[in-house]
């Protein structure tokens, strides 16, 4: 048996960690979301729902939240569309090159987020690589303005950044499918396409759900890509939170928005987990 002291020594660090860096900030944020700011720029500890009412009343807040969700949804779809075929190819077709290709997919994860975002800036800008090329081959006369500082740029960058996150769980799910099931399907007369739709896809659903959750949740809370590449039209909800906690000095409203996002994200994670369990068989 372990001594009481040993048990305490082992349990204490994680408990302290969670208490200090998770529980306390969330409780503080929860409290803040009911407080308000006085005209003299001090925090007033009055408990009311005004911040939540503002969130619904002021167009820019809920519209930005909706736009953020729409951007995140597009990122999710594009990430899945890219990641699934990639994972499928790697798992079923790559053969000996599997390990190498896997590394190639994962390597971008080791590259700094900022570097990748800036890379897109140099590609999409008016003097960027893409516009220069388009004019050079005379496809366009003037630089295309919508490429940079637009929701398009944000979706593109976030898709690039979060596709590996969608890829990993899908790849893991595909790797888990016993290959004799694929053989059994062919044996029973199913063509490769029928085998995909009837066996491989249904059995990889948990991976797809996990990948989609990653892509959606991570891009919903992103603030660097919209900051660097979004321009005024590509602003996302996190940028508003950042400014509320910064220049605007309205911590209570910022806390209320953050809390709404937290509830949204936690709900999503729970939902996708439950759905994933329904689709998992072992």
């Amino acid at each position, binding site marked *: 048996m372990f001594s009481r002291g040993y048990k305490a020594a082992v349990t204490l660090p994680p408990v302290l960690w969670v208490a200090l860096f998770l529980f306390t900030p969330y409780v503080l944020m929860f409290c803040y979301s009911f407080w308000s700011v006085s005209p003299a720029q001090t925090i007033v500890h009055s408990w009311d729902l005004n911040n939540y009412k503002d969130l619904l009343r002021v167009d820019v807040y809920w519209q930005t939240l909706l736009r953020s969700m729409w951007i995140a949804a597009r990122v999710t779809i594009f990430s899945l569309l890219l990641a699934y075929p990639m994972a499928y190819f790697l798992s079923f077709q790559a053969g000996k090159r599997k390990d190498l290709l896997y590394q190639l997919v994962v390597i971008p994860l080791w590259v700094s987020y900022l570097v990748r975002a800036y890379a897109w800036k140099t590609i999409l800008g008016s003097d960027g690589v893409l516009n220069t090329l388009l004019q050079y081959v005379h496809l366009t006369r003037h630089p295309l303005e919508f490429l940079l500082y637009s929701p398009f740029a944000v979706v593109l960058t976030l898709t690039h950044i979060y596709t590996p996150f969608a890829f990993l769980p899908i790849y893991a799910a595909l790797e888990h499918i016993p290959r004799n099931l694929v053989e059994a399907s*062919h044996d029973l007369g199913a063509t490769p396409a029928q085998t995909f739709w*009837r066996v491989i896809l249904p059995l990889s659903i948990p991976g797809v759900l996990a990948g989609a959750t990653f892509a959606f949740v991570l891009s919903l809370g992103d603030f660097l890509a919209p900051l660097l590449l979004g321009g005024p039209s590509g602003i996302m909800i996190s940028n508003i939170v950042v400014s509320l906690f910064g220049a605007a000095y309205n911590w209570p409203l910022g806390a209320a928005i953050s809390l709404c996002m937290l509830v949204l994200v936690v709900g999503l994670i729970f939902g996708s987990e439950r759905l994933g369990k329904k689709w998992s*068989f072992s």
Partner: protein
Amino acid sequence: MGLTTTSLSATATATNSSAKPPLLRVRNLAKRFGKNVVLRDISLDVAEGEFLTILGESGSGKTTLLRIIAGFESASSGELWMGEEQLGRQPPYRRRVNTVFQHYALFPHLTVEQNVGYGLRVARRPETEIAARVEDALAKVKMTAHAKAKPSKISGGQQQRVALARALVNRPRLLLLDEPLSALDANLRRQMQVELKSLQREVGISFIFVTHDQEEAMVMSDRIALLRSGELEQVATPREIYSQPATAYVAQFIGHTNLLKADVQGGIARCVAGAWPVEAADGVALFSLRPENIRVISPGGVGTAGGVRVRGRVRHQAFHGATELIRVECSENLALVVRTSSGAEAMEEEIELEFSPTDAVLVRESAERI
């Protein structure tokens, strides 16, 4: 003996190509994985409605042969014919061959019913026909009660039956079974052997059954193809393979046997055990002598005329229920295993043994290969 002759002649007509062409013809099939030769020069016929067992140790290439017939692997050379068509060029989903996999390979996301209906559904049969045939197939394997269950909720033996129903419902011309009983415990296994055999007779589909269990092969098969290191040692009925083993390996692999190395000179074979007339060329020859073909002569008893007699000391006894196997040391380099039913022999007792020269079967020495 009457039984032996009838079953022999029955298979002889079944495999006789002039009466009815064989369902499957394997011709000079070989398979290499890189430098590793897994199968070499396999030629084999499977008759319509036949139960053929491919028997071999692990690594003998038996599963590879089955996978080539199913279409999961392609042969390095050789041909595979089903009737008038070359099977080798068709993908597995075009072959009228179905497989029962070693670990059943049931689709975990589909119910028992949907698993069985899978083949018909991908073939786009009408739903009413699918429902009727699935019901029929499930009834045949006594799984109707579990139609709506997921595979993870039923036992191994039941999964086995579902796998069988899933394959048979498509009415294949040939059913391949890859060690389907190996995951079951001994009792269930024996029961399934009987059920499988009677099911095969009922549906009349040709079965190719792969196993490493010689007893299973003997009980179920019309014919056994014994595979060793990628080559066929012998293809024959269970009785023939037991009583007339072609090689020393076959004799040892199937049942117990004594291998006698004798020197043949002018039609007489001589070894430590004795001498007897034989029809063989001069030189060293190997004989297989089954333990049950050796009799213990009771003290003072008289042997049979023409029998070969040898004395020895009982060194080991193993009780097998109805019979007992005793190991009798006759000389420094000869020990005979004898099957007795009396249990009267005591350890270290000196006894006299006798066998008939006709029971010593001349076998080829199998070349050692790795």
